[in-house]
Every structure is written in C-alpha cells, then in structure tokens.
C-alpha cells in the first residue's frame, strides 16, 4: 500500500496523422512534480493518449487535476474533470460528472482520491461536455494491479492476482478511439459542430493511426502521441492485451494467426459462482464504447502477425488504405530484453 501522488494538466495541443495532417485536440499532460513556475510551459502540450494512470489494489491515489486553459482557443473557458470509468461504489465528488458534482475551471486545481479495491483494466476521461471533450482527446489508460503484484516473481506478475491464471511476461494497451477531422477543425476555428453528424476519418490505436502505430520512435516525430501500438514478444512468452474502447463506435480487433484467451471484461474475470474459470478463446475481440477486455496469448513462432480491425472500412486514413486501426505483433526468437513497463 502506497500513496500515489499524481498531477495532470488539462490543456490543448495538436496531433499528427500519418499523411502529415495536424489536428487540434484537447487532452491531458503529466505535470507531476513540476515546479509551479514550469507548469505554465505545459499549456498546449496535451498528449493522446493521456498519461498512464497505474495503481495497485489498496493504494491511495491522490490525483490533482489542474486546468491549464487552451492557448489555441483563448476564448474557450471550458472546465474539465476526470472520470475514472468503472470505479465501484464511487462518490459523486470524485466521479467527475459536472452535472452531479463539480468541475475545474481554468486556473484551478482539484484533488481526486481513489483507493482502488479491484484489479483490472479501466479508462479515465474528462466528463465535461463529454461528447466534445472525449472526441477531442481527453482520454487515458488506467490499470490497477492486484495487491500481490510483484514483477520480479513470475507467479505474482499477473493481471488479477496469484492463482488466477493471469500470469504475463509483457503487457500492451490496445486503446481504441476515432478522429472526426471536421469536428476537430470546427472546434479549432470556433464553430459549432453538430455531433449527430459524427463521422470519423481516422481510427486509432493508442492515439495513432497506421503506420504510425508501429513506429517505435517518439519525441521529435510524435511529440504529443507517446504510445506506439506495436506488440513485441519472444516466442513462448505470455502476452497480456488490455483492450479499451473509448471511441463512439463498436470495434472488432483480431491478430491474424493468434487466438486470444479472454480473461476479463470490464475488469471482471469470467468466473462461475463456485469459482470455475470460464475464460474462453476468441479470434476477434468485439468491444463496444466504454468497455474493456483483457486477453492473453502465448507468443507463437517468430514472425510478424498483423493486428487489424475486422470492420475493414476502419483500416484507412482519410479514405486511403492501409491505415487506421492496424498494427502488428512482432514475435522474436528470444532476443528481446525484458519489458521495462506497459506498452514499451
């Protein structure tokens, strides 16, 4: 049990799609530990996805949200919140729904407190005018480790605890969102958007569209899109995929040649009333908006295995294939060093 102190800024920025187009966005940026005088410099540096929020069962998470304002839209004084999607028995104060508690205006801070009691894969997002703020990019991955998690002991490096059959060697998020370029453009130029016209141009995994999904460089190339979506493993290793859908559509993801064992949905293991393990195998993960699914696979023979959306019309960038929700699982013959952290 530990205290996890984090501070996220809410601001705006730009993301890049593979053919070079830039899109105005809102999002979060990690400002944990930054001196106050440096925080102002993070305005306009929102990232997609937002920073990973990671905790262990029993931890006490103090998450400060600071509204840094929108330098790209100085007229826009929207408030922001953080909603931990799927937190059981939450109280409204920390639930982040402005209509049911409070939101954070420009220039203010607010401390959310979470003591997670259930391991699993979750998501967080802003709930202020959520149709706009989620589409604009205010989303992030969230995982809770089981209380007995120990990355140095294989039997305790698990998704749901020792003895649950959820041991893994490496873990990756497959975090699904869409981008409607017209919506982003309208908001950038201070125009209304009719959200019933929502129609994506790009489909992303971990905030990027193919082929950027498999580009492991970051920094200079993708200053605001820190997470690639290339799954790498040594043959024979157990790989945990944490699927999250925070888009507005239903998606069907498969890795050709690699069946998946579904070990949890919405952070709930499929177990019977008498404790029976009801995990099951699937080739395609069908996932609706606001759901999470955890799946395991054992890395097969070395080679590249394509990962894509079986709703094939989403494997494009602004109409051109290949693109969109495509990535790959790259399997090595034992040459990969251990994974330093999720998705790396």
């Amino acid at each position, binding site marked *: 049990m530990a205290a996890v102190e984090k501070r996220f800024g809410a601001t705006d920025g730009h993301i890049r799609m593979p053919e070079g187009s830039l899109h105005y966005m809102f999002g979060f940026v990690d400002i944990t530990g930054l001196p106050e005088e440096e925080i102002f410099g993070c305005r306009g540096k929102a990232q997609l996805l937002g920073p990973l929020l990671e905790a262990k069962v029993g931890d006490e998470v103090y998450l400060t949200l600071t509204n840094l304002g929108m330098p790209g839209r100085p007229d826009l004084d929207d408030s922001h919140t953080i909603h931990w999607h*799927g937190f059981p028995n939450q*109280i409204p104060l920390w639930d982040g729904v402005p*209509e049911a508690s*409070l939101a954070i205006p420009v220039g203010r801070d607010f*401390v959310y407190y979470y003591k997670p009691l259930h391991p699993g894969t979750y998501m967080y997002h802003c709930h202020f005018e959520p149709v706009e703020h989620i589409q604009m990019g205010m989303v992030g991955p969230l995982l809770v480790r089981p209380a007995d998690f120990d990355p140095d002991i294989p039997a305790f490096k698990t998704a749901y605890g020792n003895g649950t059959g959820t041991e893994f060697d490496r873990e990756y998020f497959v975090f699904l969102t869409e981008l409607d370029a017209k919506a982003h453009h309208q908001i950038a130029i201070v125009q209304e958007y009719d959200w019933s016209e929502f129609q994506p141009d790009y489909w992303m995994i971990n905030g990027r569209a193919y082929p950027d999904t498999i580009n492991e460089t970051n920094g200079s190339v993708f200053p605001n899109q820190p997470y690639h979506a290339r799954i790498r493993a040594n043959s024979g290793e157990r790989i945990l995929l944490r699927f999250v859908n925070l888009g507005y559509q239903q998606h069907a993801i498969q890795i050709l040649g690699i069946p998946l064992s579904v070990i949890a949905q919405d952070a709930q293991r499929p177990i019977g009333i008498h404790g029976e393990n*009801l995990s099951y195998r699937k080739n395609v993960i069908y996932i609706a908006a606001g759901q999470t699914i955890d799946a395991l696979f054992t890395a097969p023979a070395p080679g590249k295995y394509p990962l894509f959306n079986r709703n094939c019309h989403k494997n494009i960038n602004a109409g051109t294939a290949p693109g969109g929700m495509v990535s790959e699982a790259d399997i090595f013959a034992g040459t990969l060093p251990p994974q330093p952290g999720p998705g790396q």
Partner: protein
Amino acid sequence: MATRNINLWAADGYISMPDGFSVYIWGFAPSAGARAQLPAPRIVVNQGDDVKITLVNGLPEATSIVFPGQDNVTVDDGTGPRPVGPRFDGSGNLISLTDFADYPGNPDGNPTVITYSFTAFRPGTYILESGTNPHKQVHMGLYGALVVRPADYDPGVPSRKTAYGENTGTEFDREYLLVVSEIDPELHRAVRLGQPYRIRGYKPRYWTMNGRAAPDTMFPDSAGYLPNQPYSSMIMLEKDEKVLIRYVGAGIENHPLHPHGNHTRVVALDGHLLQNGPYNLSYKRFTVLAEAGQTYDQIYTWSGIGYDQTHPIPTTVPNPRNLAVGDAGWTMWSGSPYLGEKKDIPVGVTSFNELGEYHFMLHSHEEPQITNWGEFPGGMMTMIAVYPEGTLGNAGTLE
C-alpha cells in the same frame, strides 16, 4: 392464474423533444380516441396468466404485434383462435411477420381488430413490437415492453420479490424499465407528409429512454407537459438496496449503456435467466451493450466505501465558488461529499438535489447519443439517485 384483457389502439400522435422539436409518431394508445404514446403502455402480468391483447388499428396501413419469447401465441380475428404465423402475399413474399389487423376502410374487408392470446409461461422482460413493415413501424414508435413476474412473486416477502423466482439470485427492492431507441426526424416527417420512407438514409438525431430524451428522462412519470411520453427513466434507490434495471433495445442500433457508481450484475438475457443447471452464469459489467430487439435484466446496488461525517474523506473540498458547479445552470449535486447532507450551492445555480442524495449518470457511451440533435446534454442519459436510508418511500414500482 388470471385472464388479463389488454386493449391497444394503434394510432398516431406527437411527442416532444427537449429542444422544442415535435416528432410525429405511430404508436400504441391506451384508450379509444387517444393519441399514441411512446413507448406502448407497459404490460405487467404474472407467470401463468392468460394474456389477451386486442389490437385496434387506426393507422393508414396494416399493423400487428409480435411477442418474441412467448410460445403458442394465437390470434382471433372474429373467426376463432388459430396459431399466429407469418403472412405472405399471392406471390409468396413475406408481408408481415405475424397476423395483422388491417387498416380501416381496406378494400379487402379484412378485420381491423384482432386479439392475440398467449399464456405467459415464463418470467422475464420482453419486447413487443410491430411485425408489419417493421423497418418503418417499429421506428415510428410501435414498440413497448412486457414484464412477466414469476409465479411465486410476492412483493411482501423479500425472498419472493424477484425477477425470476425464489432462489434465483434476482431479489430486488425496486425496479425500473428502460426501453431505449433512436429517432430520425426526417423519416417521421416523411410519414407525416406521405412522402417516401427512405430507411437507407437512416440518421438518428435523438436517442431516447422510455420515449424521452434527456433531460426529460429525469422528469417524473406522467409529467403533464409530456402527455404522450408518460414514463420517467429516473432510477432511485436507497443506499445498499438492490435495484432491478430492465433494458429493452427497441431501436435499430445497439447502445452501450454505462451506469456510473457501480457495475451492474447481468442476471438474464431476453427473458432467460443466466443459469445452466446448478451454474449461475450471471456476470458484472460496467458497460452493457443493449442490442436491438434484446432485453437485459440487471441488479444494481450502491453501498459506498464508508465515508460519512464521522469517517471523513481524506481530501478537502474547496469552496465551490472557486470551482465550476452547474455549468448548464442547474446541478444535481448537494454541495456535500456526504450522503444525506446539503450544503450551499453557488448563487445562480438551480439545484435539483432533494435530500443530499447522490446522483450517478447512466448513459450511452457512444457520446453523440447523449445529445439532442448534436447538442449536449441530451439524449440517452438519465441519473441514478442514491438516497439516504429510509427517505425514499415507494419509488421504483412497475405496474
């Protein structure tokens, strides 16, 4: 076992959206000469009841009702009961999924009043909807829900106040029915004006719970200003109570419904208890995809994690004047972190909080669906309100 005689009049009418838009509908009316309502009048019967539903057609085309999940449905158009079946035209093309009541003045002289009968043989939540031109008539509003209580149902005995019978793990304290759908106003307008009905261009602009879009979803049953949308979608419970929430997917699309505050436990699908012999197959979810034509029975509860004035939260609540409360001009918040406590709300904000209850949103996570023609807030959204123990009275009864 009783005989339940129910009359439904297929009629037209108008419903009202929160942005002021009026939508022309076809639907079921509860009495002769009344306008259609959305959804159909609720039908709640007991397992074993003989249910007789008489359909009186007042629409300009034939219409019917299908009862997915009911066995041995018969129809009587005045010549005696016979099993229902699909209807075909002279060339063998399907023209109706079931026997229909023809429209008044039809040249064939077919009956315009027919009676469907069945024995409600198993408990559960079921959809009922038009089986004639369903791509048009269901979307126009000819849909509703049927609830069958288990044979041993006894609201006075907690172990028998259940969705599926004693010892099925489906006990509840209160229950709510949410029939969800979408509205493409262009299609409704085309029907009103007698223009071609082009479902190929289907583009919903409103998303509804019990025929209303938010914030109307949170208004009470039988609100006077919503005369043809009588059903609230506000879910109210006391702390630690079990609430049975019945979803019915009456639209064309599937909707991922996400309740804040807790997971739900899904206990039945399409009126089938999730039970296989001795094995309870129920499961918990924080988002349930309510799919078209299907029903989902779930138990929701909220117990909290122990905060009250004597076990205070570990953070300080800032002065709400320094934060944003009620951006829309209204709030459901009490101003306090604690259940049952009301504190000040900034001046100029209307609080709909009654007793310091907690509000948790329940909404479609396809977020464009929580707008009214693109404007947030709206659409397929409501609140779950958790009240302090002993304060709620008898909210949450279905009759």
